[in-house]
């Protein structure tokens, strides 16, 4: 088992990673939403 | 994983089909398993009932298990490919689930089986055995069925080579307009089944929901290129016997082809959800031999020229009312209902309607925007009310407007002449 300061450190690191990951995923969602709206009407007619 | 070894050496493999029914844990081998056996005993009864019901269908016993009779080269190819494919998948299913069933029967705790601890194929032989089904699957997908499928698509999409005539199909909610551009013939085809049959007030005819007023007439043994488009939403033209189905998309011209090899009447219907009348948009094609077809074309052309002169003559109110009655009960009734009652919330009533009981021309003889005649000729965008000037003749529009203004308790007393409509187009 880890001692106290190490555990705290681990906890903080995990929290930071969580925040980074959530922000990255949300940006990704926003990007795809915007791309669908703006770019796909231009790209997709090529399929017809 | 020694699948094959075990399967070959075990003689009781046939009994494995019974395994799922009688395979309870001995700990629970009491009332519960009796119950399940009881249900299992009823199984044959159920299956028998289902088969009895299928077998007792008199009208279409011939083709009930399969496609309708194929009459074009594409339909014959499709049915052959489909039957092959169904055989293959049934084969795969039986083999795979025979192995499953064998395991279910053989590897039961109650029969003293000792669980293995393997988590993947162990020997080279087992790896080969594990990989072979996938090689077989790739062979089935991309060679056995894949190559003929490619040729079938190429054939299906080749609408132009050696095409001998063109028919243009324009779909609207909920009817088909057929046009022979080279012959200058154009007519609308709508459902002929009576509302009383649909609402169970009258016995249903043999071709219930699959009969139309003006069938599409096509010659046999001729490659006919069919162009498709739509005026409102996406529809889909499907006659099962022809083996083709293609969407009619507004704003696009799609194409397909048929070459009907056998004279006869072929029935289908719209296959794309297109609103409330989706179920009531049948397609009937009459395939006739070349000489009769030429005759029909000549007759239809003559009718066309009388219709043109008809637009110039002055019609009496009785004539317009009679024709309007016929058209209303064929087309308008789908939405506006019998007696012009409409469906509250969906389709407006015509009886007592402000539009119908209002003026339709202004002092200068121009259409009043959103007046009765304007609504019929130009439709109401965004609703099922379409611009009927695209599909109706001058006479038909004049007749229907006159009819609506003087029926369902509307007493406008006026009428519209075909010549007026012609001038207003």
């Amino acid at each position, binding site marked *: 088992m880890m001692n106290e300061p190490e555990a705290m450190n681990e906890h903080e690191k995990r929290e930071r990673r969580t925040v980074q990951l959530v922000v990255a995923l949300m940006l990704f969602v926003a990007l795809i939403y915007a791309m*669908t709206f703006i770019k796909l009407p231009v790209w997709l007619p090529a399929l017809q | 994983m020694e699948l094959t070894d075990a399967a070959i050496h075990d003689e009781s493999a046939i009994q494995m089909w019974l395994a799922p029914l009688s395979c309870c844990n001995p700990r629970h081998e009491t009332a519960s398993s009796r119950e399940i056996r009881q249900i299992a005993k009823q199984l044959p009864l159920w299956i028998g009932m289902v088969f009895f019901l299928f077998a007792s269908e008199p009208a279409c016993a011939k083709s009930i298990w399969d496609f309708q009779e194929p009459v074009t080269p594409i339909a014959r190819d499709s049915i052959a490919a489909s039957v092959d494919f169904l055989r293959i998948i049934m084969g795969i299913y039986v083999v795979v689930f025979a192995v499953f069933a064998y395991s279910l029967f053989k590897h039961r705790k109650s029969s003293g089986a000792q669980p293995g601890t393997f988590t993947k194929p162990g020997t080279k032989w087992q790896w080969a055995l594990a990989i072979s089904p996938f090689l077989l699957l790739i062979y089935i997908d991309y060679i056995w069925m894949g190559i003929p499928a490619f040729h079938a698509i190429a054939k299906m999409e080749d609408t132009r080579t050696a095409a001998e005539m063109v028919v243009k199909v324009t779909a609207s909610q909920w009817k088909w307009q057929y046009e022979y551009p080279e012959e200058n013939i154009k007519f609308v085809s709508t459902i002929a089944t009576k509302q009383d049959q649909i609402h169970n007030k009258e016995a249903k005819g043999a071709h219930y929901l699959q009969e139309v007023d003006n069938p599409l007439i096509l010659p046999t043994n001729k490659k006919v290129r069919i162009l498709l488009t739509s005026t409102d939403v996406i529809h889909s033209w499907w006659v099962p016997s022809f083996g083709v189905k293609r969407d009619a998309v507004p704003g696009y011209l799609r194409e397909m082809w048929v070459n009907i090899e056998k004279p006869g009447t072929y029935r289908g219907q719209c296959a794309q959800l297109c609103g409330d009348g989706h179920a009531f948009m049948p397609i009937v094609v009459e395939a006739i031999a070349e000489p009769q077809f030429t005759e029909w074309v000549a007759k239809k052309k003559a009718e066309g020229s009388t219709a043109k002169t008809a637009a110039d003559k002055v019609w009496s109110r009785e004539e317009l009312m009679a024709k309007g009655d016929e058209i209303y009960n064929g087309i308008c009734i789908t939405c506006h209902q019998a007696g012009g009652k409409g469906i509250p919330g969906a389709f407006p009533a015509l009886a007592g309607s402000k539009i119908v009981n209002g003026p339709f021309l202004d002092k200068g003889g121009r259409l009043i925007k959103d007046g009765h005649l304007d609504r019929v000729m130009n439709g109401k965008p965004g609703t099922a009310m379409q611009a009927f000037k695209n599909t109706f003749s001058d006479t038909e529009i004049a007749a229907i407007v006159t009819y609506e203004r003087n029926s369902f308790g509307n007493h406008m007393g006026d009428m519209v002449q075909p010549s007026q409509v012609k001038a207003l187009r």
Partner: protein
Amino acid sequence: MTEAITAVAHDQHEHPPAGIMRWLTTTNHKDLGILYMSFGGIMFFIGGAFIMAVRAELLFPGLQLLSPGMYNQLFTLHALIMVFGAIMPFATGLNNYLIPLMIGAPDMALPRVNNWGFWILPFAAVLLLIPFFLQFFGIGSGATAAGWVMHNTSLDLQSGIGIDFAIFTIHLLGLSSLTGAINVVVTVLNMRAPGMTLMKIPLFVWAWLITAFMLILVIPVFSAAATMLLTDRHFGTHFFDAANGGDPILLQHLIWFFGHPEVYIVLLPAWGLIPHILATFSRKPVYGYRAQVYALWAICFLSFIVWSHHMLTSGLPLAAEVYFMYATMAISIPTSVLVFCWLGAIWRGAMTFETPMLFALGFVAHFGMGALTGLILPDVAVNAQYHNSYVIVSHFHYTFFGGGIFGMMAALYYWLPKFTGHMFDEKLGRLHFWLTTIFFNMTFIPQWFAGLDGMPRHIADYALRFSTFNLISSVGAFSLGLSQLLLVYIVVRCVRGDGPKATGQVWEGAQGLEFTVPSPLPYHTFETPPEVK
């Protein structure tokens, strides 16, 4: 597979508030899991009730009960409710409840977001259904009637508030799914117990991780398509409006780019949990763990590049048709890897056949049928005959009901003793399985043949040649619906504690961290992470 050395199960040091506030404010993954699953269960019966009305209309030819407009609303709502209201929330409930237990985490990474994600759902459901009920009071023209993927130019198809409400529902559901998906990704990547490497997490967790990635990629597309539809309807844009230079096929492309992965979003959780159940009742370790993980990823990847096989009759160019045909066929390979691994899971085991095992085997048999019939469909020439006919209805119910629902039921019976601390009535459970299996097949086999004979889907009334098929199918559907009431009875009795006490292990062969803690589970688990070898 994994073994916990220190599975510390705390006593409840923090008691939840009592009554309704517990459920409104809870951030506990188990509470939210139960909420999600109950919501899914309730919606399953609402969606089922709708389709009963549809089957009643189809019992005989002619219009007896419903107007065509009402009919279109009912089957559209049935599909939307079953996919977005029943199967997806139920699978989300399972992931909420099980993922932290399976990876040895105290809770999900974002518990408050989790609560928010759930409480969006009831409002979304109400929003979807409001127009349906308002029409009986003469307000509006009813709920959306455009089919569940709305892949027709809805502008002309239906005016009124129905589709607008459906569009808002889609946005809300998308938001809920996204919060859930992000939560799963973050939890699985960040919250695993020490020693629980990615290649050790149970397959259910893998399946959900992949599902979450798929949701994150396709939900924004679906929401954007719905937004475009909304602006087309009300703000004068012309994305899909052919009369003004828009492109109705674009809507189909967007919707199916979402819609095809959606099929796997519904199925993947079931594929993930089936190996657990098969392994438990065969008393064997999971077979082909790596192969299944790779197969799930392969299916995830392929699902993004085959969407147009839903549009093969819409007049794609020849090259596109050929590409989508061959690409679609490729899906059969990873799928059959899964089937092979399920077979490996039971092979040479020591099987017993409790209710969850029966449902898992039923899943394999029915999903196998759905998958194999799917093998024919990409053949473009033959597809022209199958597309939009009852063949398709039969096919996708074999995958969604025979696959998705059977899988969810197997999971429910498998973990129910774990959730409640009591065993359910095994006898009734088996009866429920056999009734479901028989009537499910009785409902959907005739539909296959009706489709072959040329019956299109979505029709409120049909020609006489299809009457026998529809009669049998309707009778089967009513019986199928009725036999699901047995499930309610079984679950309610189990929750009330009528059965014998369940052990922590519950099933003799059960493995995994969630079976190392007592049943029913304490309110908080794994506050000190277990160490995994």
